[in-house]
């Protein structure tokens, strides 16, 4: 970073803090001197006729100074042309304006001035700006996805992409090279994604749910205290670790086992990736389901026990029924996690875009293909690179819809018991 920028940043902090201290003390002086002699020494605000405490006058100054110098800083950055004179003027301007503001605001310090209210407004304003930045960033990402996707669809037809059965994005490496145009039918890779997700959910759904039921209904408080964190450790393992676990342990095990039965199975398969991904999302399902099962009021269980129902009858017919919407929500969130997962499938699922329902074959997924498309040395606007954006867009839309449904289901469920 340029040194001048660092200096200006430091100057801004100094001006803000200095303005705060200076005007706060000034306010305190005026406030104390405005009180009757015998009261001096107490700093009670109440009944003094002052609207705001001294520190609020300080905060008010700090906000104004900080905000103005920030604007000057940004403006200065924008018009910067590299000349030293410019930089010095810039620095002087920030300094002068800061000092001026601090002294101008001195006059504002009076019993009537509602510094406290103004500080409240500033905070409100800042929160709005910050949330706007978050929203705008999201919008920007979506728009760029959309934009690049549109460029892709100007080269490859939308219908061919969405319904084509052939995925082989082998285009020419350089513009002057002759080569095939490649085919971009996304069905096989969405099918692969779906297949792996199915395998993962077949593992994680029942296991996660049973864990949740055991923890919330059957385990003693002591067991729960030990088991729950242990399961949540699973959620903290980096996915790349899961990935090489799938590639080096689970994949070969499945292959060897199949060989003893006389089948030949590749090391990289939908099954290997799916099983490991299933293990990865077990804690997601178990802890979300555990939460919703716990949210079912104890009074419902008591009501059922009091009618002579056993624990498992109560679980199946009352608790599970009450928690069902929340459990569905948990499953949907897990599905969207599974189809967005990248590292495990990159390592364990393979890259062959087979259109198959057989989990023992190698398949590929949307996320794997995006990685493959963008890590080649391609021209940036070749269809091959742009296809990654189209895939990303479709994946984004799918997970967005899943998450929206899941959250609305969960929310509706929450409201019922409040």
């Amino acid at each position, binding site marked *: 970073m340029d040194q001048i920028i660092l200096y200006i940043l430091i100057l801004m902090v100094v001006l803000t803090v200095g303005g705060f201290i200076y005007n706060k003390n000034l306010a305190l002086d005026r406030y104390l001197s405005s009180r009757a002699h015998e009261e001096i020494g107490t700093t009670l605000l109440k009944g003094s006729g002052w609207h705001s405490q001294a520190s609020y006058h300080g905060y008010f100054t700090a906000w104004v100074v900080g905000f103005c110098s920030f604007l000057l800083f940004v403006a200065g950055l924008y018009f910067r042309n590299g000349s030293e004179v410019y930089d010095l003027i810039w620095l002087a301007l920030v300094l002068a304006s800061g000092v001026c503001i601090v002294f101008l605001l001195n006059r504002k310090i009076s019993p009537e001035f509602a510094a406290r209210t103004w500080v409240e407004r500033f905070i409100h304003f800042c929160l709005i700006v910050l949330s706007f930045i978050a929203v705008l960033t999201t919008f920007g990402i979506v728009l760029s996805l959309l934009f690049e996707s549109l460029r892709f669809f100007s080269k490859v037809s939308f219908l061919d992409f969405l319904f084509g059965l052939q995925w082989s994005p082998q285009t020419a490496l350089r513009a002057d090279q002759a080569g095939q145009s490649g085919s971009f039918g996304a069905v096989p890779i969405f099918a692969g994604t779906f297949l792996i997700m199915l395998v993962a959910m077949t593992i994680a759904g029942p296991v996660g749910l049973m864990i949740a039921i055991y923890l919330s209904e059957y385990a003693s408080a002591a067991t729960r205290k030990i088991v729950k964190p242990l399961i949540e450790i699973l959620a903290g393992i980096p996915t790349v670790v899961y990935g090489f676990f799938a590639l080096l342990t689970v994949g070969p095990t499945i292959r060897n086992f199949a060989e003893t039965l006389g089948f030949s199975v590749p090391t990289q398969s939908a099954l290997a990736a799916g099983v490991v991904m299933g293990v990865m999302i077990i804690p997601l399902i178990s802890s979300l389901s555990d939460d919703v099962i716990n949210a079912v009021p104890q009074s419902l269980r*008591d009501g059922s026990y*009091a*009618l*002579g129902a056993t624990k498992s009858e109560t679980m199946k017919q009352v608790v599970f029924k009450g928690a069902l919407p929340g459990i569905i929500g948990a499953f949907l969130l897990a599905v969207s996690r599974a189809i967005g997962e990248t590292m495990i499938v990159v390592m364990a699922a393979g890259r062959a875009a087979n259109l198959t329902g057989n989990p023992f074959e190698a398949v590929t997924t949307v996320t794997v293909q995006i990685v493959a498309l963008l890590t080649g040395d391609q021209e940036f606007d070749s269809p091959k690179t742009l296809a990654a954006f189209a895939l990303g867009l479709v994946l984004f839309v799918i997970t967005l819809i899943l998450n929206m449904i899941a959250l609305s289901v969960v929310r509706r469920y929450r409201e019922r018991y409040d």
Partner: protein
Amino acid sequence: MDIQNPKFVCRDVRVHYGDFEALHGINIDIADRGVTAFIGPSGCGKSTFLRTFNRMNDTIEGARVSGSVTMDGQDIYDKGLDPVLLRARVGMVFQKPNPFPKSIYDNVAYGPKIHGMTSGKAEMDALVERSLRRAGLWEEVKDRLKIAGTGLSGGQQQRLVIARAIAVNPEVILMDEPASALDPIATAKLEALIQELKERYCIIIVTHSMAQAARVSDKTAFFYMGDLIEYDATEKIFTNPGDTRTQDYITGRTG
């Protein structure tokens, strides 16, 4: 107090929550028909004692019951006795109405289904109708048995819960402050219902309202800090209590 053919006989009943003794040796006989009210300040152990009659204390982690409780002469804490079967004979209504997240019909049919009490839909329909009639709810809900039980008003929910308890054909109904979440009109309806039900069932009710105890009960037991202080005919307790602590409580000087 002498009671002919008591439904329950309790001798030296103590309940512990961990190391804390909530009840210090209760001796009481409960009459078979009619309403027995338990009164006393909060935390004196009324709910705890009520739960010993259907062994709901078993479901609370750390709770232990000692002493003996017999129902029709049979020890209900006998090792060989299944609490699940006991609870089919001793129904319970809670402070806050707790209908299941099911339809009105399914709420009432839940118990009979679990205990396999009916064969076929027609019998179940009849049982549901009879239970709802006895709970005084049938006329209000007969056209909407399929709507969720949680959609009813508080008073209706509490009567639905009573219908649900009645449906398994219990001998006893325990009620733990059943009217404390209800408005005066719903409370009046509930009290009228209790008057009807007492012809058929042994009813034990915990209540915070002196007036309610006086209105609905035949016998009243006053509890104080884990002890049974006084137990007598309701009229006697409210007009001429034998213990100053009872006197202080019913006149509002304690509690």
